[in-house]
């Protein structure tokens, strides 16, 4: 693997992508080496996320069961649809835990000046910093999440969505989740540049993740619009689940990824501006 990203425009996007994948492969290798040393911790982290998933599944089983099975709905989402929605939430969480675990340390690292070693490396600071902590246990939970999603989809095929439709909609849904998770995470953390080590990033992350873990139809329309169009938390589970379940009209389904693209561009610009404020030890 080359030690620096291709600088010339001739190398193009493909060269940069290959370089990025090479870096990520090294992070994956280091992640496995590190975690093989902490075997109990591996099991604990898998169990921890399974507890999180179980609490969600049980909560909605209890809530839907209150009115007699198959009678109640949540903002128009039936129990079977909600299971698919939870599948998307678990996949989003699995992706986040697998690749983006370093974000929990961003405020503290910013305060302590720990970004120095990242900034002098030849490549995107955001990518090199936030993707550095690959987690095999997160990957295990991602597989559990995908397993649950498959189980939930069995409950809605073929009544609600055709198996053939899933062939294209499911990969698109997972891609949207991955894209949204990365740029939403970045947007939560940029606040820390201005409010150093305040935990505001964590609070915003917790607040919006919590909102995104339930269908947007349960919120007042103003909050729903905010979560769709301003801070597109909808990309985390609502849009992917709606896409797979055929709940979206074609125009919206085609246009929404462009909104996510625009959001990513804005967040990256703000991140770069924030990075200019970085002065090694800031706290």
């Amino acid at each position: 693997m080359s030690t620096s990203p291709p600088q010339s425009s001739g190398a193009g996007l493909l060269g940069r992508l290959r370089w990025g994948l090479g870096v990520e492969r090294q992070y994956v290798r280091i992640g496995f080496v590190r975690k093989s040393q902490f075997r109990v911790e591996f099991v604990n982290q898998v169990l921890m996320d399974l507890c999180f998933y179980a609490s969600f599944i049980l909560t909605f089983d209890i809530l839907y069961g209150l009115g007699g099975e198959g009678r109640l709905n949540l903002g128009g989402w039936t129990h079977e649809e909600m299971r698919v929605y939870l599948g998307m939430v678990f996949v989003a969480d699995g992706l986040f835990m697998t690749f983006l675990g370093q974000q929990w340390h961003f405020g503290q690292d910013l305060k302590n000046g720990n970004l120095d070693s990242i900034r002098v490396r030849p490549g995107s600071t955001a990518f090199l910093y936030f993707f550095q902590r690959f987690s095999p246990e997160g990957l295990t939970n991602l597989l559990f999440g995908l397993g649950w999603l498959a189980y939930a989809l069995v409950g809605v095929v073929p009544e609600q969505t055709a198996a053939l439709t899933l062939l294209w909609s499911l990969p698109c849904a997972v891609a949207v989740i991955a894209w949204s998770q990365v740029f939403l995470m970045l947007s939560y953390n940029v606040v820390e540049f201005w409010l150093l080590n305040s935990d505001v990033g964590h609070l915003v992350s917790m607040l919006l993740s919590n909102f995104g873990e339930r269908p947007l139809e349960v919120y007042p329309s103003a909050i729903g619009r905010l979560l769709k169009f301003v801070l597109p938390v909808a990309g985390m589970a609502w849009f992917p689940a709606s896409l797979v379940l055929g709940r979206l009209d074609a125009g919206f389904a085609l246009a929404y990824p462009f909104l996510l693209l625009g959001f990513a561009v804005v967040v990256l610009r703000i991140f770069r501006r924030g990075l200019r404020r970085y002065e090694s030890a800031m706290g």
Partner: protein
Amino acid sequence: MSAAAARGPLLLLRMVAYEFRKRIQFRAGFVVREVLNGTVEPLVMLFVYTALYGSAASLAGGATEGDEVALGGWTYREIIQYVAGLVVVRKLVFHNRALDLAPEIFEGRVTKYLVMPFRFFVLLQGRFLQFTLMQLAVATLAWCIGYALAPEYWLVPVSAAATLQAVTLVLMGSYCCFLVFFILNAMAFWLDVIWSLLVMAWFVIGFTGGALVPVSQMPEGMYEVLSYGFPYWMITAPIELLMGRLGAGDFLHGAALVGGQLLALDLLRRWVWRRGLARYVGAGM
């Protein structure tokens, strides 16, 4: 009283003052960690419940507020009050992030406390007391703000006695949490990383206590089992006491159950600490 006996309480007071100073160091962080802590989930559940009861009402033929639908023995108005109670009660519950004992053990820094002429645990009790005093003030403020904004929906205690009983149960439960988190932190004598245990415990305590759904709204079998645990008496039961759904008899029953669990946890805490110290070499892991 001998000088040695007076030293313990004085040290505890100093620790409380010290912990307060640490907490208010970063003002934005203070607001986020201490004031807004525990408000997000209840807010989200409020919307979920509103949608759920809306669905139930439409199934019942558009029931109005006068003839409210009950789900699992809870009307919509009661659920709103429960969620309001959650905002206040959860602030008083000792948080899994509030102790930092594990790094001290892991990095071999416990030694400096062991040579001091007092019990190390007093320092951590100071942390618990500081947390409780601060959160009592924050919870009171949160209740006042909620009551000022929505007096007709907010949870108003049925009596002063119920308030006293509820606060007693919450604080006993909170001390149980403190002991649980101490024990899990002390696992650092054996394990490399323990934060996942803390987060797992936090999930389990929250769910089994009723942080997402009131335990008494859960299916009968679950309720029967969970009503023996301190989390139920720390979250759901105190709110039900404040609402008047439970009475003095229930309080006594709960206090006895939680008291027993508190003693058992304290014995376990002492045992784990002794066993851990026997392994400790003071050089870090």
